[in-house]
């Protein structure tokens, strides 16, 4: 049984983190959590520095002076760390928010609202009986579930029946998502079990 330092350290840290649900929060869990938070924060910072260097600083040094503005604005973001200068940092944040919101609206308009509404339409000529029934069920599900999210009127009477059907469709959706998510999340647990077994030389 040959143990390598790296996998052994990793397996030990995994077990320390798992001690939370296997027993209770202990100092071992706190140590593992501290290592995770510290390494994660440092790593994300390094990736940010590299991205800025490669995509803005290097082009600037090659003479593309247009990059000076986002670089200066990027440093201005850090002024939010002080109460006296926080108002300056709102400007670059507003740029991020504005660009992000505009792009999100573009994306959902094309990919979600228009495309999904179009996909809900039934082509009666192209389907057999079973396909037609399924398509009608899908359309009913889409309409009733959207109706369920209408919060501006009381969900009673006939409208209440419609939204009740929508809620049942939602339950089916959540059940399907959960059923699929279970498989994936078990895979993550399985991967850690494998690392524990390999780290301690049991595999």
């Amino acid at each position, binding site marked *: 049984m040959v143990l390598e330092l790296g996998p052994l350290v990793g397996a030990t840290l995994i077990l320390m983190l798992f001690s939370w*649900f296997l027993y209770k929060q202990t100092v071992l869990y706190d140590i593992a959590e501290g290592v995770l938070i510290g390494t994660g924060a440092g790593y994300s910072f390094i990736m940010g520095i590299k991205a800025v260097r490669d995509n803005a600083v290097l082009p600037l040094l090659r003479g593309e002076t247009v990059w000076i503005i*986002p670089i200066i604005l*990027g440093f201005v973001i850090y002024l939010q760390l002080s109460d006296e200068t926080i108002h300056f940092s709102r400007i670059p944040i507003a*740029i991020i*928010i504005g660009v992000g919101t505009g792009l999100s609206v573009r994306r959902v308009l094309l990919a979600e609202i228009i495309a999904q509404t179009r996909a809900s339409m039934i082509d009666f000529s192209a389907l057999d009986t079973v396909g037609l029934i399924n398509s009608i069920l899908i359309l009913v599900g889409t309409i009733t579930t959207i109706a369920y999210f209408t919060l501006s009127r009381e969900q009673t009477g006939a409208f209440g029946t419609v939204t009740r059907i929508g809620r049942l469709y939602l*339950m089916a959706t959540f059940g399907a998502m959960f059923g699929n998510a279970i498989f994936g999340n078990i895979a993550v647990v399985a991967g850690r079990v494998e690392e524990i077994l390999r780290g301690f030389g049991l595999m």
Partner: protein
Amino acid sequence: MSFIRRTEIPITIAAIMTLIMLLDLFTGDPTLRAASTMLQSWAIILAGFALGIGAVSLLRLHTTNIKRKRPGWYGSVLIIFFTAAVLVTGLMDLNLANPILRFILDNMYMRLYAAAWAFEGIFLIYGLYRAFKIRNLDSLILSVTAFFCIIRNAAVAEVFFGPAAFAPGTWILDVPNLGGIRALMIASSLGILMLGLRTLLGKERGYIRTGG
């Protein structure tokens, strides 16, 4: 310089940015296209800078914990040590080839990140046992659809239930799930449209912090 403190300035900037992005899509005007792509580049660079805010705030908080010897300050020492270790070794070689950095990332960060993700799996399994109790029609549908979708993913189910084991799960995924998820997407997209409208009109102020 007191005018720079006015909240109308960032709100107006956000509205103008949103407008440029939308007008670029709807008009295709070359000037707007150039402005839009330039602003996208700026947003990318600003996002890169923003990645460091978390680390800097974390270091500030935990340095204060250590100075004031707050309960659990030993953990803060650990956090600062590893943040600094990754930062220093990372800055030595931004291609992440430094051997110490590789050891920390490959054997500590990657393992712990995945292990933290595994918590979700363990608690989903626990939730399956504790929360999926059939009390009414809603929970019946939830449990039955989850049951058949889990069966669908387990090839070994064919041994117990025969080749038809996967049919109910596949039908659930292709019909009721499709109706529900499409509606969820459309509804959430309408919410994003409303957010865009609020930003354009200057009603969205959540990102304007007043201090601290």
